[in-house]
């Protein structure tokens, strides 16, 4: 195990103070692959180990998967490059030379922002693992020219502008870790507000903050209505906090153990999932437009069975972006039973997005949930997503090399995306479509209405 991997292992293990949990994460998540990218950038794209070198190694497609899953993932799809490539001819005509993968135009509109890649940094919340690293995460995302999400409860738990714990950044420090490095006109920040943050009027606070005002004026700030998350659809945010924090938050969250009377190291802190009907959602979206006309409006939804009904509301209300987080989405803390049994897998969410496209809904869609490489990005684009969001890969990458780890990781992912799109004979993100993807599984092929590659 390389040295950063050991460090990461310790970090992961310490989060739940159980080495087994860390081991499971290392075994089931492509941590080594992400670490290599975070260390070496695009040099990590080739499958040489420290023992192989170019000119000596013999390599081919790995036909095994790291861990068999209970449900289908995007890894059961493959991209289908063609021989005949009219779009490449178009590009060649523009360039007056044969195009390379470097000629793919990746700049993408995501939810009212411009992004250098069809990729955003997913919202991460108040849990230590993301929050302690947030200065590097924010800077990394800003410098890479991609939008970044800020999850729930950050201000309520860590303070808006005054620290609740000396060693932890405030909401505003986290926000400006991004905004201070933003490369206009690229990027943008997406801010969530939990029911508990709403108690303190977080969005109003941000909207009336003179320091943030210039960024609203430039259209670089979105507010995101959160309808659950991938790892625990239908449940509220859950985390553990210290006794001091628990005492100060007691009135706003649900604590199974009363921090005033029960003595523990850490207290489970639950937030409410929030109650919605179509009418409540519609009303909330409209109020957002009225109250914060300069903010973009995003929706983040967990993997719910009625996604399509929500997409219709979002489309009618002209929401800037709808992000859907599949059940494999990352989490700082979710009940095991929720991880096992709640919600639609990411690929099933992508199917809903695909259905929405067929129905002619015009909301821009962003997909997230255990997506970590360029292949995932291009497959999602092929099936109707406008962009994807990554979460955990950035946590791993930041653990390896801070903001630079993020830049390296994105450099590698960017080249992957370029290569894959160009291999399809296409040079624009918007040209990637249905025809570019096939399934290794017949049932899946039927469900997604794409070719079964062995047929």
């Amino acid at each position: 195990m390389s040295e950063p991997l050991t460090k990461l292992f310790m970090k992961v293990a310490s989060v739940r103070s159980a080495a087994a949990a860390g081991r499971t994460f290392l075994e089931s998540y492509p941590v080594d692959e992400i670490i290599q990218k975070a260390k070496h950038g695009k040099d990590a794209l080739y499958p040489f180990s420290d023992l192989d070198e170019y000119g000596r190694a013999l390599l081919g497609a790995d036909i095994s998967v790291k861990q068999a899953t209970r449900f289908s993932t995007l890894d059961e799809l493959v991209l289908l490059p063609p021989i005949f490539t009219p779009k490449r001819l178009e590009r060649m005509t523009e360039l007056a030379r044969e195009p390379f993968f470097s000629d793919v135009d990746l700049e993408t509109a995501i939810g009212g922002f411009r992004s250098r890649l069809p990729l955003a940094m997913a919202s991460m919340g108040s849990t230590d693992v993301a929050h302690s690293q947030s200065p590097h995460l924010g800077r990394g995302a800003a410098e890479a020219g991609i939008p970044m999400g800020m999850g729930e409860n950050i201000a309520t738990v860590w303070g808006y502008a005054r620290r609740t714990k000396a060693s932890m950044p405030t909401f505003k420090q986290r926000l400006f870790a991004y905004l201070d490095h933003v490369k206009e006109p690229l990027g943008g920040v997406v801010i969530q507000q939990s029911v508990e943050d709403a108690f303190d009027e977080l969005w109003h606070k941000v909207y009336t903050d003179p320091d943030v005002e210039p960024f609203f004026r430039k259209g670089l700030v979105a507010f995101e209505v959160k309808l659950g998350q991938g790892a625990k659809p239908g449940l509220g945010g859950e985390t553990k906090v210290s006794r001091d924090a628990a005492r100060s938050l007691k009135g706003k969250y649900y604590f199974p153990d009363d921090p005033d009377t029960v003595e523990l190291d850490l207290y489970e802190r639950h937030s409410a999932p929030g109650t919605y009907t179509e009418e409540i959602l519609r009303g909330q979206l409209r109020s957002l437009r009225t109250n914060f006309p300069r903010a973009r409006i995003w929706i983040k939804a967990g993997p719910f069975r009625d996604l399509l009904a929500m997409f219709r509301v979002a489309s009618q209300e002209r929401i800037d972006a709808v992000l859907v987080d599949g059940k494999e989405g990352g989490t700082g803390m979710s009940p095991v039973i929720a991880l096992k049994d709640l919600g639609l897998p990411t690929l099933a969410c992508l199917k809903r997005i695909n259905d929405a496209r067929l129905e002619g809904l015009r909301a821009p869609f962003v997909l997230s949930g255990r997506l970590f490489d360029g292949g995932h990005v291009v497959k999602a684009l092929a099936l109707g997503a406008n962009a994807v969001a990554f979460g955990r890969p950035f946590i791993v990458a930041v653990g390896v090399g801070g903001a630079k780890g993020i830049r390296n990781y994105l450099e590698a992912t960017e080249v992957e995306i370029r290569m894959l799109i160009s291999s399809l004979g296409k040079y624009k993100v918007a040209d990637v479509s249905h025809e570019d993807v096939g399934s290794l599984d017949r049932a899946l092929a039927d469900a997604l209405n794409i070719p079964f590659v062995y047929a």
Partner: protein
Amino acid sequence: MSDPGLAPLQDHLRTSYRHVRDPRMQKVLRVQAALGSAIREYLDGEGFTELLPPIIGPVADPGIRGAKQATINFYGREYKVTSSAILYKQMMAASLGRIYFFSPNVRLEPLETASTGRHLVEFVQVDIEEAGATYEDAMRRAEDLVEHATHGVRARAGGELEAIGRRLNGGGTPYKRISYEEALRILADHGREIPYATEIPWAEEEFLSTRFQAPFFIYDYPRGSRGFYDREHPDRPGILRDFDLLYPEGYGEAISGAEREYEYARVIARLRETGENPSKYEWYLDMLREGIPPSSGFGIGVERLTRYVCGLKTVWEARPYPKVAGVFSP
């Protein structure tokens, strides 16, 4: 201050302690006082009871268009400074029938409002509520009140108005009434399309206001564009029984009013439109569960009325010691 555009205003308002001795300002303040007594004369004559306004409480009106509520530390708990007295009005009307406050409000408005000429962070509104009234009744009340105040002020401070050089167009009641949808159509006809079901933006409101020579109503706003307490038409879902009164000549919004939701189950669903946990409004919900009668009412900003009557360029010329978003002044 981060916004360099505010610098001239900042310079101007830094000496606002001195402005109150300016001869023109003295006249404006006398007109304002005359307006106050004309309003009181009208309302008292109509059987309204004036009440002392609440200044702080555990919750305040959340429907204040992006403005943030001011807070104070109330013995370890956070209390809100009144953003409007709306939550208190319904019970007072249930008790006394017809009531009003001269209610000081504080709203930490977004910085963008510093340049509208129509927004103050601290202002006074006459907040009126009438048990058993419909929103049509409330509109009639609103136009009577504005007519009485604008006529009354001529009797009381005609000299000042003449010196200021302001002559109001007659007009007379009833004021013109256009629906929200018609307002959107007028705007669209002038190339100013706005998304359905949002409140009319400041610039468009001002534009609409320039199209009229006398005050006019916009009624039937769609759900989502206004506070949770504006009552939804029982037989026209999505449409609210509410209204704004706008001054003409570009002076913009004068009054916001509505029939109130008063049934607990309807209010709790509407409250979620704010994204908050209804438990925050505990006392208000308890009150509704215990049952209160229907009512309607509205609020009219005293500084905006003064601005209109005196024909002032901006609303911060219409009160002593004005507070404007993002501007530090006495």
